[in-house]
């Protein structure tokens, strides 16, 4: 079964004889390899240009900011590999944030708030899956409608934002606190630990379990998957629910960082996440993409934005540079496909 877009080229005899040549080929011929090279080059450049970049504080601020995008992008990778999409994750940031903050204010209990957030995620995921699979409507359309509906629901709960009235210390810690100290490196923030744990969990699920293999099979060829006994609708439903639940978790971290649930949170977030997933090598045609690629793409986009701020460049360039990186990545991908004759 094919996993990564470019791993389907057989190594040449010379490369088999020389493992180093194989590694070099991985670095320069696969999406993950290229992203890694570019990311390292960018980090070296920024470390040279700005003394602040490589500091413990900056690196962890950078990673904390990216953790929410990374968490949602992990779910989105599964969904895109399974040949579906979710445009409602941006609106979820507003809806879940508002609802969870209200639940926290009402119960003054961290786990109750978290449970409400995750249940809201399950609910939206099931609605997305039900409409897509039972009514047989394209998921692009279903989640586009949900993009509107979920944002509307966020407005029904509050006119602007829900403030933190419960003053739970554990709540603030989730977004801004530190989990533990790594000797020689520094204090690691909670959002980074959560994102890393989720990445590890899903890396195992996607690569080592029947479910993971089924996700690739469903996206690569749904008909063949169905005929070989895979329950396509069940797999896709799980992918929808996972994406929504992870979006809800990201929203929970977001309200902890902002200390309020705002109904205008997450405008354009869905396209940022999808942009990162596709930059990481996933294909909208399904069946292709890796979590490593997605993670590297999220890191690259986040580092670029961080660099723009550190170098004192007008922060408005962030948006343009993000777009340019996506265009260049798609261009490189198109050229590589052509040179491989996969046109």
């Amino acid at each position, binding site marked *: 079964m094919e996993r990564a877009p470019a791993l389907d080229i057989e190594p040449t005899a010379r490369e088999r004889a020389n493992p180093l040549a194989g590694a070099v080929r991985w670095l320069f011929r696969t999406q993950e390899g290229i992203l890694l090279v570019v990311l390292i080059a960018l980090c070296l450049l920024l470390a040279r240009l700005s003394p602040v970049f490589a500091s413990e504080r900056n690196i962890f601020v950078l990673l904390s900011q990216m953790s929410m995008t990374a968490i949602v992008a992990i779910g989105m990778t599964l969904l895109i590999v399974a040949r579906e999409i979710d445009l409602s994750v941006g609106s979820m940031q507003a809806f879940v944030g508002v609802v969870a903050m209200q639940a926290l204010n009402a119960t003054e209990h961290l786990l109750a708030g978290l449970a409400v957030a995750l249940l809201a995620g399950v609910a939206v995921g099931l609605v997305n899956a039900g409409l897509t699979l039972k009514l047989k409507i394209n998921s692009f*359309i279903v989640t*586009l*409608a949900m993009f509107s509906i979920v944002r*509307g629901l966020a407005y029904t709960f509050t006119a602007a934002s829900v403030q933190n009235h419960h003053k739970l210390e554990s709540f603030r810690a989730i977004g801004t606190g530190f989990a533990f100290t790594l000797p020689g490196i520094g204090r690691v923030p909670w959002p980074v630990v959560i994102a890393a744990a989720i990445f590890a969990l899903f890396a195992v699920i996607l690569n080592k379990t029947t479910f993971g293999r089924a996700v690739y099979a469903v996206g690569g060829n749904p008909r063949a998957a169905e005929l070989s006994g895979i329950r396509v609708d069940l797999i896709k439903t799980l992918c929808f629910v996972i994406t929504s639940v992870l979006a809800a978790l990201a929203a929970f971290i977001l309200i902890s960082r902002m200390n309020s649930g705002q109904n205008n949170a997450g405008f354009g977030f869905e396209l940022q996440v999808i*942009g990162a997933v596709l930059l990481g090598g996933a294909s909208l045609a399904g069946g292709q993409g890796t979590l490593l690629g997605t993670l590297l793409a999220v890191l690259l986009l986040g580092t670029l934005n961080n660099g723009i701020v550190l170098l004192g460049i007008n922060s408005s360039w962030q948006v343009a540079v993000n*777009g*340019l990186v996506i265009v260049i990545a798609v261009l490189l991908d198109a050229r590589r*496909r052509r040179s491989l004759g996969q046109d």
Partner: protein
Amino acid sequence: MAAVQGQPGMRAPARVGGWRRALLPVVRHEELLLLLLFLAVVAFFMVVEPSARSTTAYLNLLRDISPNLIAGVGLTLLLLSGEFDLSIGSMLAFSGVATVSVFNATDSMWLGILAGLLTGPLVGAVNGYLVCVQGMNSLMTTLGMMFVLRGIVYVWTNKTPVVDENKFTAFTAFYQSDVLGVPAPGLIALALIALGHVMLTRTEFGRNIYAIGGNPTAARVSGIAVNRNKFLLFVLSGTTAAIAGVLVASQTGTGYFDAGVQGFELVVIASAVLGGVSLNGGEGTLVGSMLGVLTLGMTGKGLRLMNVHITQQLVVTGIVMLIAVYLHGVRKRLLIESRSWEE
């Protein structure tokens, strides 16, 4: 059908209830279904809201949604060929800001409008080059271009609205003016729709669009210059978006850096899909798509007349969209079934 029944050797017709036969015209003609849907929405608001009973409300509706109609013309033709353009929301800001900036730089209204309109073919050609010549995925490419253009506008304007220093009253008066009782921007929209409809239904170019969208390989084999036609469609989509952008700027004589930022591209795509355009290309009509824009526009307008909060507006818009898309699916199934009614 009676004649068929009398012929020897024919299978006896399935017994079909009268209500199903009454549905036949709707099943056969998609536009009729959409017109009925639109009229149902209008009738609903006429019953519940007295101010929706005046003619001016509908003329104002035409004025309000003229940018969506105009940008929808180019986008619909592109969607029919099986490609996407997500950059039209950013185009709205880009062309508007270009128009007013050139006003201020040259003190000439016509040069400004010309500059604003020219941004359309320019950006369209870039999109077209990347997709048709470089072979890049259009959803990804125009997603990237969406960020690139928005970023350029942010940097250019420093996130402040560009105000027309010359106060060209002719520019703002045009948007508010009526010709023979019809709003001038609406007339431009109607003219472009008529032009697009004739092009789509009466010319070789139009037939090629359906052929390309339906089956690109077959189109190529039968001698259609697929890439050249698609390139033209990208230029067209950029151009209609630029016209819409200049109109938005003329509402108040201001170039807004955030015009279209709340998902203009997604709303126009949603309208086209509501109007029966398939995202896979090759299926749908321009008239249907425009009825889709009107239906969504009327839903929003009616709710605003009723002073319904934006909350429910978003929710209702999403639900109307889902109902419409579901009805298209039902219609398609009935269409297939209806063939057996006549046997």
